[in-house]
């Protein structure tokens, strides 16, 4: 009886200790790297969704509709039609909406006129090869180019090396309904005709993923307005 209880307990404990020892060492090794990457990618994400803007202050948090909402404010100096310098405000926020197999978390940048300045997917668990293509960087060179040993300068040579799906959100108007079309892999030549319709080209075979990202933007813009309204009288030094 005692043997039936003590021996298994000792063995299970010993194996668990070995596993914990292994895991704690791997964790010690990797967690700083993961944290550093997370911080870097947060900064890169902000630079990506608010291009040209300087982020002012730290991230801001508010409770909107029962859950936390995080956003950043930035500003950029532009020259208007009569060469007068003025400051344009921009906002970046985190938002998420349910995709095909879990929440898709994105960071979206909008300027004060409600135009999207950029979008990047922070985390997703969509199907590899389908919905997960929302983080795929389109390859403009073919396999044959690779074998020949050089990547030719194609029309898209100056295209930003960011995922094509995310690239196409720049310039969309969040005050109007954002639609989607089935045009396959987006390329910069499609930008104008899609912006006219205020639409994106959905990922082939992953319409749910594509519409989820749009739903995330719409929900995020609405929550941004509410969050800013709660903090409106703040910033005493900023008022003129």
């Amino acid at each position, binding site marked *: 009886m005692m043997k039936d209880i003590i021996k298994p307990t000792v063995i299970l404990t010993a194996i668990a200790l070995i596993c914990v020892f292994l895991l704690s060492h791997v964790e010690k090794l990797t967690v700083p790297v993961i944290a550093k990457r997370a911080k870097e*990618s947060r900064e890169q994400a902000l630079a990506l969704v608010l291009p040209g803007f300087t982020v002012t202050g730290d991230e801001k948090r508010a409770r909107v509709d029962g859950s936390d909402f995080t956003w950043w404010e930035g500003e950029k100096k532009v020259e208007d039609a009569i060469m007068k310098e003025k400051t344009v405000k921009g906002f970046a926020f985190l938002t998420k909406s349910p995709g095909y197999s879990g929440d898709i978390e994105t960071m979206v940048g909008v300027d004060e006129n409600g135009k999207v300045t950029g979008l990047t997917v922070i985390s997703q668990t*969509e*199907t590899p090869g389908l919905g997960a293509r929302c*983080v795929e960087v389109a*390859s*403009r*060179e073919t396999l044959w180019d690779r074998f020949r040993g050089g990547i030719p300068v194609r029309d898209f040579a100056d295209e930003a090396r960011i995922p094509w799906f995310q690239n196409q959100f720049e310039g969309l108007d969040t005050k109007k309904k954002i639609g989607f079309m089935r045009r396959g892999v987006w390329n910069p030549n499609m930008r104008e005709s899609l912006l006219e319709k205020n639409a994106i080209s959905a990922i082939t075979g992953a319409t749910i993923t594509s519409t989820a990202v749009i739903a995330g933007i719409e929900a995020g813009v609405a929550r941004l307005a509410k969050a800013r309204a709660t903090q409106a009288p703040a910033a005493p030094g900023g008022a003129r």
Partner: protein
Amino acid sequence: MRHWKELVKGIWSRNPQLVLGLAFCPTLAVSTSVSNALWMTLAATFVLVCSNLLISSIRKIVPGHLRIPLFITIIASFVTVVDLLLNAYQPEVYRSLGIFIPLIVVNCIILGRAEEFAQKNGVFVSVLDGIGMGIGFGLTLTVLAAVREVLGANSLFGYTLIPGMEPATAMVMAPGAFFTLALMLWAMNAVNSRSKRK
């Protein structure tokens, strides 16, 4: 000679998916692109070899009724190691494979080899068995992924094959995986039954 046999059996005569009928879930799900398939192979083989190594070395002290919880603890630990390492050093791969890395815990090849082989055999042959099974798993996965990526996405290793051609998207979706895997199973059985008749 026996050692060589343990190593190569996973490739053909005891191929995990095509003969043993194991691990269809990751095979169907991750074979959408060749690079996904190769990283999945690497991750699963690492877990398989490590768990075979540890399980075969403690096989004499493990009481029969305790083996399942013990095996799962060991396998889950190695999967967590892979998960952390990929997250830290290959974030792109980690993002692309997503949920299928933690799901290696329930990859039935790994528990299957622990049950069927590692707990009955020595450390050295168990490691060879793990490597061989990993190669066999990876070979099936990569062939399947190559067919699906070429036909379904018009690309290989992410590089476009024929610019401007519209790919047969059904091939990267679930039906394409089932068709291709069925054809591979059929080809395997046809070859095997023909060689048996001789």
